[in-house]
Every structure is written in C-alpha cells, then in structure tokens.
C-alpha cells in the first residue's frame, strides 16, 4: 500500500506544478498577472483607477455625484459652474468622436458650437423678431449643424493631419468673421442695410428654453437637462464605439489605408464622425445661448477651442471617462483659480504632490521639504544681513498660506523684476533637471522647489489671470511628460 502511494503523490505534485506553471496553455498568458508590473506611488494612480475600478462603477459614482450636486446645491454661481461643466462635457464628447475616435484634427470644431448658439439666438430673440418654439429651433439647429458638418467634411475626405487642421481652422475663422460682418448687409433687392448678427455687440435678450409650457427660468433646469443629455450621450456613444462603426472610426485613426483595404468606407465614416460631432456641438450651443440669454462671437473662438482640445487630450483621447475628467479639469479649475486663496492652496498642493511623485520614498520627500525650508531661511538671513530692502509683509500677504509663509519667505522690494528673474532661472533649471544625472537632480530639486514658491509668492499671486493660464499650462506639460496618452487614455503601440 505505502509503496503505491509515493508515485501517486509525485504524480499529483507534478500535475499541480504543471498547472501552476500553466504548461499546456500559453505561458505568457498564464503568467500575465504576475508579469504585469504595477507602477508604484502616485504614478500608479491612473493605472490603478483604470484596472481596479470597473467602468460602470466609475460612471455610477459620477452620476450619483452629479445628481447630488443638482439636488442639494442652491448656490447660483455653483450651479452655473455645473451647467458649464455639462456643456464642456458635451463639447468634449463631440470632439472625442471627431478627433479621439476618427483621428481627424478638426480645428474649426468650436464654430459648430457658435453656430448652434447664434442659430438659437436668431430664432428666439428680438434680433430678427422671431420667437419660435424651442422644439422647432433646437431641431433646426441639430439638422443645420449636422448638414454644415457634412459640408465641412467634404474637403476632409481628401485631407489628413495638418492639411485638414488648416482647412478647418479656416472654417472656424470664417464663422467668426461672418458673424462680425453680418451686422451691416445690403441685399441687392433692398435699399437699406440689414443687421443680422449685431456683429461684435452680440445678441442679448434670448428666450429661455420652454418645453410643454415649462419655462427654464432657473439655472437648475438647464443643469438637469444637461445631466440627462450627457447621460444619454454617454450611453449612446460608448455603444456606438463598440459596434462596427466605432471600430471602423478607430481603424481610420490608426491607418486609413489599411482600413480601406479591409473594406471600410473611409470617406463615409469620416463624414459620419464630422456630422455627429457637429450636431452635438450645435445642440450644446443652443443650450448655452438659452441659458446665458446672450451670445457674443468672441466666446466661440480659439481660446475655447484650445480648452476643449486640452480637455480631450488631458483625459486621454478616445476615452469618454477621460473626456469627462478633462472637462472637469478644464472648466472647473479656471473657476477655482479665480479665487486667490484656492489657487494658492492648489499651487502648494501641486508642488507637494510633485515632490512626492519625484521623491519616490517618504525619506526623500521629507529631505526635500526640509531642504526647501532651510534654503528659505538661509536666503532670508543672508539677504537680511546684506540689508536689501524688502516689501512690507502686509503688502504681499493675500491668503492664509502666504501669511504662514511670511516669516520664511524673503520678498524683495522690486517684486516684478525679481519675479521675472526667478522665472527665467526656474525654466533654465527645470530644463537642465530633465537631462541631468540623478545626483545633480537630488541637489537641484529643493532649489527648484524654493524658486517655484518664491516666484509664486512674489509675482504670480497678485496676477490671477496669468497665474491661471500658467498653472493650467504647467499641469498639461507635466501630464503630457509623465503620461503621454492622457490620464485615462490607452498607451499607443506601434506596429512594425
């Protein structure tokens, strides 16, 4: 008996080993779990979100948050931010189809938003004296912008990349110029000129939406409308993305010629992407006009275009969740940064986070923070001995953080001059930092950190607008370096 048992056990063990090694199955696949390296620390956060929280859970959380916001927030200013976010998400979704899925670099996209807004304004204000029903005007706008999208897509059929970018950029500018010029048009059959768009003055007094006798007088109404629309769009677009149409869009982005040789009708699909994107933007424009009750053409120009592009790229081109995230960052952040206190806290938070991400271990992080503190005291003491004039504390303290820093930070009298110098040095140091050896990096890091705080307190805190742009720009640069595919985007792989 006992003699028999030994080989059996060995056999069993062998079988067990084989199963563990995954012999007989594809070995790489069998070992996939162990071989998938997790990024450590902060850099692993996007990966963690991407891999361990299922997509539907993310959406449920987002939806619940959005719902709670609409239900419990009463502050008109906050609600307006919410509505702007909704519009931004719609715009990002549309662009995500055109640029993220189909890979078409459409720089005139924002014009469709403008056309939607102006279209609604002309159909629902005293400008032309029309007050059509909301249903009718919204329907006309959706169909109209879709048609325009079709027309704009015609040149896109033959164009790619930078050529397409130039043509669509031109389209966007034509829209702006047309609106500006259409306040003074003389038709051949009339004697007097007609004012269609009111030019740069914009169109005021636009009617709010009105459905089934319910007038959208409260900003909250628009919030709910947008929430429903965004939810519907999320479901629809993510469904389309999983059908043959969505797949075909993505093949065009990757390799249009190969797509064509698989039988994909490249031109038709490009057109579909343009038309869908345009209609979404047009609808968003109509909502914007009704909510805002006034439109100005300057709101539909390049600055907004760059923000939408930034949102889509930041979140990860081709990802809907990424588009939402990008929209949150690009539409809410500028609002937050309007308030100096917030921007100051955010700045320090970003600085601390960067230090934490770069430093990797708690020890390094602590050393960096202590070093920065020491540099600060050293500078204050040394320059104190040199008795160079400083700005009186009460003149530059703007928030709780700068008050706390005031005993530590050395603030020279000529803040603009010193701030600019610090700015130049900082950029040179950062450029050097990215290319140098680890040892020099260790030394440079606290110096860069100090200069950053110095620049901030001396110069940027007082100049809110510049600061906003700079902060957003810096954030984009940092993200693009650390995660080129965007926050939730899939990394690109090259096929040889």
């Amino acid at each position: 008996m006992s003699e028999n048992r030994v080989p059996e056990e060995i056999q069993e063990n062998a079988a067990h080993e084989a199963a563990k090694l995954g012999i007989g199955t594809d070995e790489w696949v069998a070992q996939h779990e162990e071989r998938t390296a997790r990024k450590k620390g902060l850099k692993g956060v996007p990966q963690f979100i991407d891999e361990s929280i299922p997509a539907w859970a993310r959406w449920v959380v987002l939806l619940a948050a959005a719902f709670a916001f609409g239900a419990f927030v009463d502050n008109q200013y906050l609600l307006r931010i919410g509505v702007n976010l909704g519009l931004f998400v719609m715009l990002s979704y549309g662009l995500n189809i055109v640029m993220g899925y189909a890979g078409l670099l459409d720089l005139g996209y924002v014009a469709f938003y403008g056309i939607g807004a102006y279209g609604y304004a002309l159909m629902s204000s005293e400008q032309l004296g029309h007050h059509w029903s909301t249903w009718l005007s919204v329907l006309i706008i959706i169909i109209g912008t879709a048609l325009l999208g079709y027309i704009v897509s015609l040149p896109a059929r033959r164009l790619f990349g930078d050529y397409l970018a130039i043509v669509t950029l031109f389209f966007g500018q034509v829209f702006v110029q047309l609106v500006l010029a259409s306040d003074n048009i003389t038709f051949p059959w009339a004697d007097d000129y007609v004012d269609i768009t009111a030019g740069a003055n914009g169109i005021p007094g636009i009617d709010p939406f009105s459905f089934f006798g319910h007038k959208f007088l409260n900003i909250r109404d628009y919030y709910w409308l947008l929430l429903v629309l965004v939810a519907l769009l999320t479901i629809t677009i993510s469904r389309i993305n999983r059908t043959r149409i969505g797949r075909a869009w993505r093949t065009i982005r990757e390799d249009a010629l190969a797509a064509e040789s698989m039988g994909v009708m490249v031109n038709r699909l490009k057109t579909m992407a343009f038309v869908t994107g345009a209609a979404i933007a047009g609808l968003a424009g109509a909502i914007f006009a009704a909510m805002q009750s006034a439109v100005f053409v300057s709101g539909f120009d390049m600055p907004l275009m760059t923000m939408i592009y930034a949102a889509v790229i930041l979140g990860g081109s081709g990802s809907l969740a990424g588009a939402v995230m990008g929209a949150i960052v690009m539409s809410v952040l500028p609002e937050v940064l309007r308030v100096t206190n917030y921007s100051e806290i955010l700045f320090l938070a970003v600085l601390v986070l960067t230090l934490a991400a770069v430093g990797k271990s708690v020890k390094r992080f602590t050393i960096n923070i202590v070093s920065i503190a020491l540099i600060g005291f050293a500078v204050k003491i040394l320059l104190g001995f040199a008795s160079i004039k400083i700005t009186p504390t009460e003149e530059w303290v703007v928030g709780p953080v700068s008050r706390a820093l005031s005993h530590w930070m050395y603030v020279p009298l000529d803040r603009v001059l010193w701030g600019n110098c610090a700015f130049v040095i900082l950029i040179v140091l950062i450029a050097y930092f990215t290319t140098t050896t680890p040892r020099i990096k260790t030394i440079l890091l606290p110096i860069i950190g100090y200069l950053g705080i110095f620049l901030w307190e001396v110069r940027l805190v007082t100049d809110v607008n510049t600061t906003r742009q700079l902060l957003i720009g810096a954030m984009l640069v940092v993200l693009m370096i650390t995660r080129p595919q965007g926050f939730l985007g899939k990394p690109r792989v090259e096929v040889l």
Partner: protein
Amino acid sequence: MSEKKPLLEISNIDTYYGVIHILQQVNLRVDEGELVCLLGGNACGKSTTLKTILGMVKPKVGKIMFAGEDVTHQNTPARVKLGMAVVPENRRLFGPMTVLENLKIGAYVRGEAAQEDLERVYDLFPKLKERSSQLAGTLSGGEQQMVAVGRALMSHPRLILMDEPSMGLAPKLVEQSFEMIANLHSQGVSMLIVEQNANMALSVADRGYVLQTGRIVLEGEAKELAGHEELRRAYLGR
C-alpha cells in the same frame, strides 16, 4: 480537379505612380480554388500589382475582372465586398486595438462579426483565442501574422491576396506560415501570394508568375517554374 473557372483576371494592366510607369502590360489570372504566386525581386512592382487588383491604385489602361464582374472602376471597399481580402505587406494590424477588434474589422463589409466566424479563426489559430483581448501591436511577429490572416478570413473572402507573408519572420515561422497557407489552400480557399522567397512559394503554389521591373517575364505551373534554369539562377540562389 474540376474545370477551370477564372476568379480573377487582370489583362493588359499599366499602372503609374504619377509619371513613373510601374506595371507594363501585366496579365494575370487566378482560377477558383487555385493558389497562385507572384514572384519577383525587390521593388519590381509586386505590391503595386496587389494594390492595383485591390483598387488602392488605379491602372491607366487595362481591365480587372473579379468573380464575373468588371471591377476596374470600382473602389476598394466595393471589391472587398465582392470577396477580395488582403493580408498586407508588414501585416498592418491596428496596433492599439485588441486582437478581437482586429478580427472583427475583417468582417466589416459583412456587418457585425458573427461568433461562428470568430470560432473558425480560433480553430485555425487557437493562440488567438487566448490573446483576444491583447493589443495587436504587442504581439510577436508570428502572432501578428495569424491575426492578419484571421482578419482576412473574417470576410468570407473568395480570394485572399497576401503580400510577402514570410517577410520579417524567423525561418521556422516562415515554414509554419507556408504550412498554414497550404492548409487553407487544401480547404479550397483561392489565394494570390506575392513573395520574394520563391522556393517556399513554389512549394505550395499551383501556378506562378515572375515579375521583373513591372513586366511578367515568366509564367507556368509551379513545378515547371521550380525546375526552370534561369529562374533558379536569378531567384532561387543556387
């Protein structure tokens, strides 16, 4: 063998890239169920011939008949719909898309991909089933080849056009891929294979053509060609 029915017939094709005259008076035929190879050295116009057949470039003169229809003036998707499928040079997979999505794109002209078509490909290449959710661009060369062939099969093609299936593969994989080609052929799939590796191609083909600077200089049964003195010297390297 049953009586010969021409599936693809191109006659007197002249193809230009701009002003550069590439194909000159090319005639070529593939019969139903036949495996034909098109041999030739570097840059002699092999890929151009395939592109002309597929409609990616338009010939200046000549006529292309496929499945009983004159397709000379049809665009590529229409020809794919009629039953052409291609395994392009260097595979040209859609790298950031999964293996499954790459396969499904192959069925684009048929609508949504059918599960049984996928199963058929997985039967042929079991490895692809395990890899179905992996990004195609991260596969090894041999695996990418499988996806490219599987993708072509997904459209139920009447004719598969393969551009240098052995390119960039290790010798052992080249052998495997020709085994796979012979296997497909034995199942009745018609194929036109473009190759520089004349030895391998002739070992599986029924007939062959030899292209030299845009002209067909030789054609015949594969066995004949394999024994042809001149061809041996020029291409078979011995």
